[in-house]
């Protein structure tokens, strides 16, 4: 057992964790932030993606006790306060979600993809950048459209409007 202070969705939290406590379990079970999901046990689905000090990580791969004091964590619940984030709006408008299980991880990932692409983004770049996220419902087409729509709303230029059919 060890104690650690984290900033989760902007709030300072002092938590007690076991050596084996995964970040995803801390988030879900102790913080009761159930928007972060678990879809696999081999770190391959991306349902658990959160932001950790500015990077996206699969929270099922992180041992909480190893995090530096004061680590900043943003989950889907912290992506926006009040109104939806433009990326959330875009997912809804472009029907980028069906059952919604993959959605939190995808939205967090999508925002990160756009933030890392200030010079513009194309559909094929989005497809590549989504390699860590699985969705079994949508066939990805509307997810790609959502990310591009979100990019536009976040002020990033979309360089390849329509994918080559």
């Amino acid at each position, binding site marked *: 057992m060890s104690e650690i202070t984290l900033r989760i969705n902007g709030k300072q939290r002092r938590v007690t964790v076991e050596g084996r406590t995964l970040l995803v379990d801390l988030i879900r079970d102790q913080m009761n932030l159930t928007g972060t999901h*678990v879809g696999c046990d081999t770190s391959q689905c991306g349902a658990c993606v959160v932001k950790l000090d500015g990077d996206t990580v699969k929270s099922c791969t992180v041992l909480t006790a190893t995090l530096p004091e004061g680590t900043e964590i943003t989950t889907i619940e912290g992506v926006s306060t009040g109104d939806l984030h433009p990326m959330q709006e875009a997912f809804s408008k472009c029907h980028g979600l069906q059952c919604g*299980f993959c959605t939190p991880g995808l939205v967090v990932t999508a925002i990160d993809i756009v933030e890392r692409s200030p010079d513009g983004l194309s559909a094929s770049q989005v497809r590549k950048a989504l390699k860590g996220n699985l969705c079994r419902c*949508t066939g*990805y087409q509307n997810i790609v459209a959502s990310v591009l729509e979100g990019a536009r709303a976040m002020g990033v230029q979309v360089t390849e409007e329509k994918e080559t059919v």
Partner: protein
Amino acid sequence: MKDTPEKPFKGRLEDRRFLTGKGRYVADITLARQCYMGQVLSTHAHARILSVDTSEAETMPGVIAVLTGADCAADGLGTVPPFFMPSLWGGPEGYATQRKILVDDRVRCVGERIAIVIAETADDARVAAETIMVDYAPLPVVTDARAATEADAPKLWDDNENGNISVSIPMGDKAATEAAFADAEVTIKRRLLSPRIAPFSLEPRVSVGNYDEADDRYTLYTSSQDPHGVRSNIARNVLKIAESRLRVVSPDVGGGFGLKAHMHPEDALVLWASKHVGRPVKWLGTRSECMLTDTQGRGQEIEVEIAATKAGKLTAIRAEAWTNLGAYFWGTATPPLFFAMQLIPNIYDVGAVDLTNHAVFTNLPPMSVYRGAGRPEATYLAERMMDELAAELGMDQAEIRKINAIAPDAMPYTTATGMTYDSGAFADMIDAAARVSDWSGYDARAEESRAKGRVRGRSLISYVEVAGVMNERMEIKFEPDGTVTIVAGTHSHGQGHATVFSEMVADWLSVPVENIRYVQGDTDKVLIGRGTFAARSSMLGGTALLRAKDALIERAKLMAAILLEADKDSLDFADGMFKVRDSNKAIALTEVAKMYYIPAGPANALGLGLTGEGTSAGKPGAAPNYPNGTMVCEVEVDPRTGALTVDRLAALDDVGRILNSTICEGQIHGGIAQGMGQALMEEMVFDEDGQLTSGSLMDYCLPRAEHMPDIASELSEVTCTTNPLGVKGIGESGAIGAPVAIVNAVLDAVRPLGVAHIDMPVTQAKLWSALRDAEAAQ
């Protein structure tokens, strides 16, 4: 409704909670004092259980109880039969298995549940479960369905008089087929395989059980597509209690695809365990555990032969299939057995057929429905063979299909397998798909591929789906304040029912959509329902909803007549108003509705509350609908490496009247991705001992964004005549057409290089080997 610039898709009503992390999945449920269940799963595919030693587990930290099959027997728990057998669909009687929720005598596949541990935490439960020693006496194993029909094959069910065959379903006309083959100008024979694949909802299965001693009642929270079906099965067969003493709640469900269309042993185990320990019990399936214990889809080998004229007209099809049931006849395994045969004629006038499907027990985990449920197998056969015939005769892929397509003026048309298509413009769909996909621009693209050292191939395939099984019930209720609640018997887990059904009711009643609440998935709130699977909800849910609306309006009319002091038969309902014909007297429906809730006054005579209920029926018994479509696919293959890209994929779908085009297209995209997984990468692989070797995402490959082409999807509206809304289903279409669209395109690309046949999944390694073999043979 088609999206238009004036009325664009604005998102779904249910989206917000999913987008903000507020979805309510079963894993998110935490009940006070809950504890956790861990399982001991069989590591042998076939063995007698000699002993189960739980002594160490019982002393482990956090352990509350350890339960085995012996405890099940002591508590008098019952066994689980199939949801229904083929005899209910007009097939022969077969051997129906009875499955124990904890097995104590003989395991028949890996992943059988042998014991459970209830502990304070999920980790405690799992760690303790690992210490339980099961002593097995291994028995011989058979994993292949056809091999299991051999006389000397290990037998799974000793009292099955038919060896390992549960049931053989025959279809068609043997004599007519033989006659057609005797006259045939061309015959072609093939052996085709549709391997087992995993439905793989992204949300793993999960259940929470809670026994409440105060009213001697159980509550199950489970990730299910059909909560009432789960309730019936557990109450009747396992717990042997009145159904009203079990409540089943399925809140948000993270994908189903047929996997969650029936109960799983864990659903019963958490309830029983909860009663034992006097606390709520939660089971969170890990992905590896689910890979091993989930039901799987497909699993068919088929020998097919077609007869045709030299002009390319089919005259007969005969086929014999072996479907790998696994160890049990489980869940809803019946529909795929039928659909895999019934839909073989597809959009074609095929002449005579003689078909048999053997459902065979093997030492694999149980098969049940997976998106498409037999229809992809049938379509795979029909369209593979159509291309073989085209190749044999040197004909164009579109041309040969149009020669054989059933003409619109032949509708209603009954196929040689007894399906009556009410509507469909199949040849037009082929022409339209060719246009959508730039069929005529192909040669230039093929040339470009050649210049890069690649070969291009294409396919054009058609499919028919049969949608709308069983019956359904919906309710519409006005609340005292004039807002509306829809209580749905269907179950949306991604399909957007909360939006589509609410929009329909909003439109019919002229009530703002924000004033409509949508309720589903709780057997205490929904009187009865069948849930959602088999592309059934648009027709059956929609029709029942329409009838509920009609019933509600009829009842509202009684009150309107009193309030307007008019004769009930002189009232018309339009735009949310009751109007007295030939007068200017009118009153709004919402005002009428509120009067049903006032406690006193003359209107009281009509009794309390304004609700309407409606029911509907589909196949068998009443007519289903037949969505259909055409897909065009182009692939590029690198002949040196076998690397394969699906470059273009266009789908034209006849969905009947469109309820929401964006949601329809979403269903099509998702189905196509699953079909692509089946065609190119997915396979549940078992070794000869029946051990699963593709037990996690490390070995089981699912399509990712970069594998998928940008799909060109268009909808066509050929109104269905078997339901008042004119709708057809959409949930499975993509998964039905895509596998063969992709495989045919691959074969078209590599046939000139000497590769005449390839089986799914067409992995790069398989394609590379086929290319090298062909090279060596030349």
